[in-house]
């Protein structure tokens, strides 16, 4: 589903095909391409409380982006045979079976007798009295469609030594396939295991583009467009975040106390995620790191210790040689 967007439908210039040499030159001479017009920040709100695990998003993504199929292998981990995101898997639906050994009985319903009475007198209450079924049954099969988080401070982008990873005019994180040289640094930088090098295909790093090609034309991404239950919602990040908070309120009011948002506020990676989630359990249950450190923050302390060691050893060596 797409939440209404204020994207301008102006013709957006395409990125030029940069040949290596020109790009080296342009590093020094400066970028001569006119900046693209600012657009509202776009992203995803993946609401797992609506996911039915149909995997249509996975297939739609493969289809639109013409990604290779994974080798079929049966895993025995519930209905998930995809296992993880990767170079040719940009959407991945997880299945978590959280079912207790004994069938749990639902809470008793009050006021039932009174209803019968009321009915026989011809008075039907506007809302049924005791219909207090929980919003989800106590036995849970959690499903979540995972995707690139399009982090506001994207470690992959911060790490990339070639500038292949850019932030688009929609504030999404995009890997320019013609620039990436497959150094693999983004792969270890991403705290969510999203981006990966396509060693059997392009040999470059690949991940969800947030369907940049479609966005430029004002078309909703393939996965959210396909999602039958609107578990994946696409739209302006600010609006989506407001909606996510509302949704959380609604669920909690429905008694779904386990519900929580992930990546909506600014704590994760010091800026939040442009593609965020509503979860029905702890993030760890979904293999999501609760509060992953931001790798670029390590540069300073690591350098400090390195320099300190160097100084110590330098002093030693000077002392030893001097004597």
């Amino acid at each position: 589903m797409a939440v209404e967007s204020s994207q301008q439908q102006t013709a957006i210039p395409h990125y030029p095909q940069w040949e290596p040499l020109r790009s080296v030159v342009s590093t020094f001479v400066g970028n001569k391409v006119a900046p693209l017009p600012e657009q509202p920040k776009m992203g995803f709100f993946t609401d797992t409380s609506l996911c039915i695990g149909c995997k249509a998003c996975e297939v739609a993504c493969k289809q639109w982006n013409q990604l290779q199929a994974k080798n079929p292998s049966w895993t025995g981990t519930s209905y998930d045979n995809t296992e993880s995101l990767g170079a040719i898997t940009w959407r991945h639906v997880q299945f978590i079976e959280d079912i207790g050994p004994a069938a749990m009985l639902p809470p008793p319903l009050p006021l039932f007798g009174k209803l019968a009475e009321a009915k026989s007198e011809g008075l039907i209450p506007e809302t049924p009295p005791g219909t207090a079924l929980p919003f989800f049954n106590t036995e849970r099969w959690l499903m979540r469609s995972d995707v690139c988080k399009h982090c506001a401070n994207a470690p992959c982008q911060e790490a990339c030594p070639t500038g292949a990873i850019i932030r688009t005019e929609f504030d999404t994180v995009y890997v320019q396939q013609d620039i990436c040289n497959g150094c693999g640094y983004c792969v270890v930088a991403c705290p969510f295991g999203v981006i990966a090098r396509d060693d059997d295909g392009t040999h470059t790093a690949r991940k969800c583009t947030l369907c940049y090609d479609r966005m430029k034309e004002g078309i909703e991404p393939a996965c959210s467009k396909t999602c039958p239950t609107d578990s994946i919602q696409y739209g302006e990040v600010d609006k989506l975040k407001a909606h996510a908070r509302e949704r959380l309120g609604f669920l909690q009011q429905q008694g779904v106390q386990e519900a929580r948002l992930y990546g909506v506020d600014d704590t994760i990676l010091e800026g939040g995620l442009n593609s965020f989630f509503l979860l029905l359990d702890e993030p760890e249950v979904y293999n999501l790191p609760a509060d992953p450190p931001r790798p670029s923050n390590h540069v300073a302390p690591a350098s400090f210790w390195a320099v300190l060691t160097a100084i110590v050893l330098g002093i030693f060596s000077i002392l030893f040689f001097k004597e």
Partner: protein
Amino acid sequence: MQETRLPEPVAASLAAVRRGLTSPDVIEQLATLATGYTPDRAQEMEEPTYYDYPVLQAPTWTWEIVWYFFFGGLAAGCYIIATVAALFGSREDRAVTRTGYYLSLLMLLPCPPLLIKDLGKPERFLHMLRVFKVKSPMSMGTWGLVTFSLFSGVTAVIQAARDGILGKWWGARLLAALPQRLIALAGTGSGLFLGSYTGVLLTATSVPLWSRSKHLGGVFAASATSTSCALISLVLRLTGAPAKTLHKLERLEWAALTVEMVGLFTFLRGSGRAGLALVGAGPGEHGPTFWRFVFGAGLSIPWLLSTLSLFGKPKKRTMRGLLVGLLVLTGGYFLRHTIIEAGHTSSRDARVTLWHSKH
């Protein structure tokens, strides 16, 4: 020949250590000691994860990077030691300078091919130079390597010119007249960078083993020094150098090894549970290799040996020196090897990754 034989108690304890190091229990204990984390398997199994599928992608880096780190460290270390010897050393120490600069360039030669080979798209190596990104150690590292290559090359060429290898024509004379020390001073800066940025590079990732503690840069810097020291003295011992100079190197070696050990333990302490991938004995953990080849053969034995030498008179001690040198070089290689490999293990371990991000 007597001097090469190890003293009895040392030999005995080494044997015990050898025996011990083959037993997982002992490795577990050492790991606990080093990391300060007592594994509680039951508790760990309680922690939620998603079928233990990795949270992170495995690094794409394998042997090329290990060798690149190794050679890069040597290139930088040799350069720096050579420069220190040139600036502060005696006349005799010139041998160090000369050997150092040559070795530096020699060690540098395999680096670019290794780095390029490691890329998914080697033909796009130059794309590394599209941008200059302070936040990205790899970007900085590439620039550092380029800069250092320049310095290393120029310095070595000057050295060659001065050594008369380039002949006596005017160009060679011009080169020989260049202010090598001044250039080397600047080159040392980039050498320092090259020797330690690799550790910083690993630290600035999401892999728990590499990034939890912030001390890897220091460890790599110390290891660059110790291995370079070992390499230079190895060559000098073989080509013949004054015992005094060699003794200076021995002392530097000892200091570097000491710092490296302190650094390594600080690193492991700081890593805690994340360090197990490197030092533990569990499946996929690299403890056995680490304790045997990095800690045992690569650090403690040479450290013990150089400690012994430290208190002796400056003598040649060729065999012992050669042994120490070889051990340190092997250790230096395995340090990088196990850290890269254990990084793979670490990236696969969902529980550690999740714990790491929470604590």
